[in-house]
């Protein structure tokens, strides 16, 4: 499955990139699976996803939980809890 990934704030800084297009293996079916898979890529990803429970995710511009399915997703974003306002 091909996905557009977007990273923000300290997730972006730790990974060292604002985003990328990636081919994700078939066994990665949920947002949580994707986090675990990315965390194994290298040190930067491991640092970004060291505390997976606090990472927020969005699929195609909508907030989702970690058990959300990736089927049909085009863009998946990972970021820390929001601090706007």
């Amino acid at each position, binding site marked *: 499955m091909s996905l557009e990934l977007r990273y923000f704030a300290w997730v972006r800084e730790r990974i060292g990139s604002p985003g990328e297009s990636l081919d994700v293996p078939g066994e990665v079916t949920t947002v949580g699976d994707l986090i675990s898979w990315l965390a194994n890529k290298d040190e930067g990803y491991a640092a970004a996803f060291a505390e997976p429970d606090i990472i927020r995710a969005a699929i195609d511009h909508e907030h989702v939980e970690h058990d959300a399915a990736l089927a049909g997703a085009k863009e998946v974003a990972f970021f*820390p809890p929001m601090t*706007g306002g």
Partner: protein
Amino acid sequence: MSCTIRIRIQPQPFDAEEESKQLTEGRSDVGALVTFTGYCRDEGGTLAALTLEHYPGMAEAEIGRIAEEAAARWPLSGLTAIHRHGRIVPGEPIVLVAAASSHRQAAFEAASFMMDYLKTRAPFWKKEERVGDRDGDWVRAKATDDAAAGRWQKP
């Protein structure tokens, strides 16, 4: 009641008075206008600036969803939300929410709801720039903000 929703995400400052006028000018049905402006503060002289990062596309979409929810819950005639991004120095405005209604309770509650949800759901992140130290930290999300948003949840 049909509610005119205006959402803007922009780097430049905004004019709260001008935005208020847009919600009231030429109308005789508005009995209450509540505006809230959030400013960048200097944290006792230690903060040089905030840099706000946002998720283009999702920021507009998410604030739009929050505004639609507010318009469904309260009888509003107009609702405006403006959120800035980029580098903002102490004393400058960051966010504006303005809610117009026939009655004050709806306007107060809708503005308060908008701010609580903007803080916890709109995809913006603040990075601090400390005086004399250009590498500041990312602002941490506060549990009190989550609690404030939680009080609007329907049982």
